[in-house]
């Protein structure tokens, strides 16, 4: 009795079918492919696109609890942070990040009046905002390296909602989706 073998030509000839399924016709090439895939995965998901899971309510309803997304750590290499970008903000490291929206750019003055945002006295139109709430906040002058970040969930109490002027070095990258 003989083992079942493939009828293929070249390198595959005589190789048992189970071996082809497990390691391919050419084990050396398979190893190279695995190595390249692992390296690419490490580079893409470790260095460029950081997988993350939403854990807090401050960006609801745009981003809901438990949603999976990616943080593009290279996004600011080519374009500086812009208004209405949703960005990740680092704490002591990058394991836990705040997810916030940029509403103010360096040098601007930001003020909340009955839930409406004024940038340098001009009303900011926020189409992403589903449930505005009557927040009132004194004007905050941003420094040359500061961005005003806030979540989309303004139904939360302003005191419980982490928002304010963050330094550029705290911003990791834009949210991909």
């Amino acid at each position, binding site marked *: 009795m003989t083992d079942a073998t493939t009828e293929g030509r070249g390198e595959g000839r005589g190789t048992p079918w189970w071996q082809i399924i497990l390691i391919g016709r050419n084990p050396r090439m398979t190893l190279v492919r695995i190595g390249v895939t692992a390296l690419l995965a490490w580079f893409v998901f470790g260095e460029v696109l950081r997988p993350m899971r939403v*854990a*807090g*309510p401050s960006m609801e309803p745009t981003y809901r609890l438990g949603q999976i997304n990616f943080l593009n750590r290279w996004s600011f290499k080519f374009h500086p942070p812009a208004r209405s970008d949703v960005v990740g903000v680092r*704490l*002591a*490291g*990058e*394991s*836990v990040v*705040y997810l916030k929206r940029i509403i103010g750019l360096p040098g601007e003055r*930001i003020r*909340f009046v009955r839930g409406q945002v004024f940038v340098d006295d001009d009303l900011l139109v926020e189409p992403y905002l589903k449930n505005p709430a009557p*927040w*009132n*906040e*004194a004007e*905050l002058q941003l420094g040359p390296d*500061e961005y005003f*970040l806030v979540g989309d969930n303004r139904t939360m109490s*302003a*005191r419980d909602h*982490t*928002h*304010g*002027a*963050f*330094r550029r070095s*705290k911003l990791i990258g834009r949210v991909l989706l």
Partner: protein
Amino acid sequence: MSRSSRWLMIGVVLAGLAGIAWRLWPNDERKIRQTILGMAADATFTGHEGNFAKLGKIGSIAGRFAEDAEVHLEQVLPLDGPLKGRETIRQMLTAGAPYMGAVTVQVYDLQVQLVDDVSATALLTASAKTTGKKGEFDAQEFELRMVKREGRWLVGRVEAVLGYRKPNIQ
């Protein structure tokens, strides 16, 4: 036994001994990490603990603070001033024990820097997650000053790091 096999065996034994020594005699940085991670484990409650178990955990947390420890949370909580002294910390925790539900405390991105033989600083992000249908998640950055007293690394000062400028809410 061939010569190479003998050397291999010696290498394996030495590596094993080094591993055991590493486990049994941690250096100062690892001791500090153990203190901080142990505190996070003690601050984690399943919600099924009885009062004695809660008090035991609170005692363990308080025991990781130096006698003259200070906790500064004014940046993030509406407190009048810092908590001063291990006993004050213990009393505060004990007062809150009956209201403590299920909560998981975790430490991330712990960076320890030794200042000298008896002091060090640690920067970390701590998260607290409550379980249940309305499970809430919150994270906060902290800076800790660690002090070595009688051979033990204890928390000398805790400061909540705000990391941004808050607007003046009216």
